[in-house]
């Protein structure tokens, strides 16, 4: 993953809902309100995966969404990161034994950062993003 100079100043985030109960969505939106205001650091929600650096995935991956998640993941240009928000992505959460799940997110995508919590608090999400930042810096240092 080749990191460019302009990368570390801002992380553009694309939110992908793979069947979540919208609890995590409300938290994500709460994160980008002026109270926490990640925009100061250049973290911004964008409308298309083609502009994104980080893929925010929420919800357990349902069977119907599996193919679409892979396609959207491939449409995010390199260098990219995947953040899994909420326990649903990690273990299916409250829907853990549902017939319709296609396994937790890491069987579908290579995940970099997990943010547990149902739903995780905005501080947890921002802490997750900081972790992602650190990972990127580690990658850049290793480069």
């Amino acid at each position, binding site marked *: 993953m*080749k990191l*460019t100079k*302009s990368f570390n100043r801002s992380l553009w985030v694309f939110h992908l809902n793979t069947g979540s109960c919208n609890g995590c969505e409300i938290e994500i939106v709460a994160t980008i309100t002026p109270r926490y205001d990640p925009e100061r650091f250049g973290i911004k929600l964008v409308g*298309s*995966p*083609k502009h994104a650096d980080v893929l925010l995935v929420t919800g357990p991956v349902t069977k119907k*969404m599996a*193919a*679409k*998640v892979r*396609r*959207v993941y*491939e*449409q995010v*240009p*390199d260098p990219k990161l995947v953040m899994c928000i909420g326990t649903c992505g990690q273990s299916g959460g409250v829907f853990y034994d549902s017939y319709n799940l296609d396994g937790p997110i890491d069987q579908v995508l290579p995940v970099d950062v997990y943010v547990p919590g149902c739903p995780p608090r905005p501080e947890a999400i921002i802490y997750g993003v900081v972790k992602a930042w650190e990972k990127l810096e580690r990658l850049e240092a290793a480069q």
Partner: protein
Amino acid sequence: MDLTAPLLTGYGIWAPLVWLVACVAAVIVVYLLWKTGESSYKKGTELERPYLSGNVEPEKGAVHIRASNLYWGFLQALKGYYDVLVPVHTGVLTDYMIWFVAVTALLLVIVGVLS
């Protein structure tokens, strides 16, 4: 007879060459900005295909918006005007000639009476 003289239009002037120089400068600036972008991407992958919220791109013929659906709103907005204007073009030769004779008669009255 100066080749590059600006066009005097009685009220202002229009100098196409100055305009062109400004455009070339703008294009150069835009090109430089574009050059700084990241241009390497893996060919043939999903990166080339459009983002349709994860769905597969439908068959080529269906994606292209055909001519008659463009300006649907414009035609709908002017429906009253078009409902009058389009039927006037009936396509019948005698209607066209009636228009021709009627306009000639109207002009005869106008020029005959007014001037």
